């Protein structure tokens, strides 16, 4: 983006009305959708700031602010002149907000007049109650000024000096986060209890103090210092960088080991769940991210890991197992589990691997379900107890300490060991000959074959490595939960793991870690609660919205693999480079692409 010295000055009401209509319409639609999805009602009982603000209202307020800000945001193209920031931005934001508020107001009036409760559960007096703040129907109109004001604030952020804008955002976020994550914060650092009232509602006084602290932090230049440290790390190279990276790893490991010691059960449970899904996501990252095999039935290997461990350790494992069949300790069962998972990986992989693209995805989807239905079936009822599942899976006993579900800390430490191992293996594989072969197969299978890569073996290897990592996760899951049911392995698990990998950044190990923490930690796994327990009803809605937003705005994921970023943003990239005069266009025309070898 270039900034030119000359700016166009426009009057306060000289707006791009089409943009106003578009963003305003989106705001209105979004607000109506949120209201009808039941968020305001469902989340109203969760008070964020004592007596003043509930999460239900926050769910209606945030959108106008962001849309107001978007209204003033300009994407400058080559040859265009920027507009001088003026009160025009605030007016634009206000208009957008007002349209959004209008949407809510109309919704309120409609709810009052018609009865559509049959298809729309939340077309209810409760929703109306929230929208009117408990007053008469006419009160609903106040949403127009409320949203307009928020939109104006959003738009005005462009006017304010950058520091003021940053400080405002920091203050809002700090207060909201402290309020929303109350349970977690108190669980980790219990002395912080004083911030909250009995029901974990943030006290107004402390909210103001926190806001002030955030503002102070921004104005004291704290943010810049952080950015400088980060930039320094990025710019270091050679042995110094290796040293810094090593130090970083040691520090994060130490933090990870210490947190469960000081934190309460909720945090420990959360970290254990993140770890279990991280293991799964790391495995799927190898299959999808590195080798490019879109496996939609990955849960099958998780199930195989869980069931094998359960069958080998539990006394309740079904009646048809022969008498000589051993009951092993957990680690003994783990060895067998790994072998079984590899075999199942080979067994499923062998037919699947010969297919490409969509066909492969569909077939893996089928296998994922087949495995679950086999465990559920009457036919194998004598072995896996069908829907009753296998109960009484004993804790994993390591002599010094036991890993069991009632002690999530022990589960977390066990998971940490396996996650560290898996991260190391993934990282080594990425830079190995096999890793290169995976990437070649992902890029162009026919050419990879012509290079002499045995594509079938290489893809099978990816399948098997992925299966083994998933079986680790399954084995730990069995010991943690203590009972294994077919319903723990629904197709939803496959999808959520895939979303973790995509949102985190395909092929990027750090991305997968970030994805697991953000999705499983904050939103929660398929059945496991996350930090935002209040949102558990809307978990899938948020997962979906996040996925759509990521695909549109940031297809490379949260922490991208460098290679994918370049590819996905190649146009911008080339344009930017061209502007800097760095692209050597040469005399050559771009070559024609495509064409299949026949």
């Amino acid at each position, binding site marked *: 983006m270039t900034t030119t010295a000359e700016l166009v000055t426009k009057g306060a009401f000289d707006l791009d009305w089409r943009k106003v209509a578009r963003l305003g319409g989106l705001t209105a639609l979004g607000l109506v959708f949120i209201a009808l999805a039941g968020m305001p009602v469902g989340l109203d009982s969760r008070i964020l700031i004592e007596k003043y603000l509930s999460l239900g209202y926050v769910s209606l307020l945030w959108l106008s602010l962001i849309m107001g800000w978007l209204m003033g945001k300009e994407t400058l193209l080559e040859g265009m002149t920027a507009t001088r920031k003026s009160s025009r931005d605030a007016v634009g934001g206000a208009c957008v907000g007002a349209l959004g508020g209008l949407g809510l107001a109309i919704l309120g009036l409609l709810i009052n007049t018609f009865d559509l409760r049959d298809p729309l559960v939340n077309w209810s007096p409760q929703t109306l109650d929230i929208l009117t703040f408990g007053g008469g129907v006419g009160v609903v109109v106040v949403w127009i000024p409320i949203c307009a004001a928020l939109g104006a604030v959003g738009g005005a952020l462009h006017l304010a000096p950058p520091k003021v804008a940053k400080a405002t955002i920091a203050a809002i976020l700090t207060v909201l986060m402290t309020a929303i994550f109350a349970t977690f914060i108190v669980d980790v650092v219990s002395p912080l209890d004083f911030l909250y009232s009995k029901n974990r509602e943030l006290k107004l006084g402390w909210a103001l103090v926190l806001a002030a602290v955030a503002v102070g932090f921004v104005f004291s230049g704290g943010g810049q210092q952080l950015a400088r440290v980060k930039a320094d790390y990025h710019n270091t190279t050679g042995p110094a960088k290796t040293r810094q990276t090593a130090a970083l790893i040691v520090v994060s490991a130490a933090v990870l080991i210490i947190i469960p010691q000081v934190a309460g059960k909720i945090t420990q449970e959360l970290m254990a769940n993140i770890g279990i899904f991280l293991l799964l996501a790391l495995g799927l990252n190898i299959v999808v991210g590195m080798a490019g095999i879109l496996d939609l039935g990955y849960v099958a290997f998780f199930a195989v890991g869980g069931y094998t461990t359960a069958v080998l350790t539990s006394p309740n494992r079904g009646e048809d197992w022969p008498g000589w069949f051993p009951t092993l300790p957990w680690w003994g069962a783990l060895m067998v589990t790994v072998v079984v998972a590899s075999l199942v990986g080979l067994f499923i992989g062998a037919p699947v691997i010969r297919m490409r693209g969509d066909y492969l995805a569909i077939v893996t989807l089928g296998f994922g379900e087949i495995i679950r239905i086999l465990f559920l079936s009457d036919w194998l009822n004598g072995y896996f107890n069908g829907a009753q599942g296998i109960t009484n899976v004993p804790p994993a006993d390591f002599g010094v300490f036991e890993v069991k579900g009632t002690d999530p800390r022990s589960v977390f430490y066990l998971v940490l060991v396996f996650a560290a191992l898996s991260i190391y293996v993934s990282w080594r594989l990425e830079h190995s*000959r096999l890793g*290169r*072969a995976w*990437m*070649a197969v992902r*890029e*162009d299978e*026919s*050419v*990879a*074959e*012509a*290079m*002499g*890569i*045995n594509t079938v073996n290489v893809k099978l290897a990816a399948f098997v490595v992925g299966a083994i990592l998933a079986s680790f996760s399954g084995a730990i899951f069995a010991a943690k939960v203590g009972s294994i049911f077919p319903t723990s392995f629904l197709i939803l698990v496959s999808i959520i793991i895939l979303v973790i990998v995509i949102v985190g950044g395909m092929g990027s190990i750090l991305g997968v870690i970030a994805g697991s923490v953000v999705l499983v930690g904050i939103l929660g796994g398929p059945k496991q609660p996350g930090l935002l327990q209040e949102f558990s009803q809307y978990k899938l809605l948020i997962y979906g919205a996040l996925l759509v937003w990521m695909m549109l705005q940031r297809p490379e994921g949260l922490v991208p693999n460098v*290679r*994918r970023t*370049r*590819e996905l943003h*190649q146009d911008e*990239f*080339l344009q930017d480079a061209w502007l800097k005069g760095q692209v*050597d*266009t*040469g*005399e*050559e*025309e*771009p*070559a*024609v*692409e*495509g*064409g299949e*070898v*026949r």
Partner: protein
Amino acid sequence: MSDQKPILEFRDINTHYGAVHILKEVNLAIYPGEMVCLLGGNASGKSTTLKTLLGMVTPTSGEVVLDGEVVNDKPTSYRVERGITMVPENRRLFKRLSVLENLQLGAYLRTDKDGVERDLERIYSMFPRVKERLSQKAGTLSGGEQQMVAMGRALMADPRVLLMDEPSMGLAPSLVRTNFELIQQIHEEGIAIFMVEQNANMALSLADRGWVLQTGRVVLDDTADALLANPELRKSYLGEA
């Protein structure tokens, strides 16, 4: 050349895709260090010939012979290890991988690390521009640079025979010329070249011998000069009335 034994040979090769008969009784021989070309229009079986040579398609009858050994049921990797390498049509680089990774993948089957290092150096000296762009993603290179990387990638396998699938396909005219110069340069290093081309004029002016393939059958088999002079060929391929 005829006193030497051929590296690669087709003996009465027939191939089918499903029930469709693609190659019909094809006989070919490639001798060490020579440059030969296979001409033919669309759907004449040129690409199938290459795929059969490399083992990506198994013939229904006949023998593919490599150094006197019948290799019909040997996989592609076996043939690549013994010095048969292909430069695919349209280059087909691994676009998201770096130039260096592309080159390393060319040497995927080689275990002699020193030799690989030496060949990397050799490719840098042949194509200095490739060396400048080692860490760049292959997809971001210009067409000409991509062509160099594609050739470099094939050379990294240390081939004795280089199979080239339509090297002038999809290239601007000025690039086609540079490209044939590159091929000539590689040939001068003693590597045999088997080129599949539609650009008959250019290919024949470089090659020693050539074949003309028509609907899966070899209809002409002669020296390049004789083929260039062949009136029928001139009519159908060189655009003379």
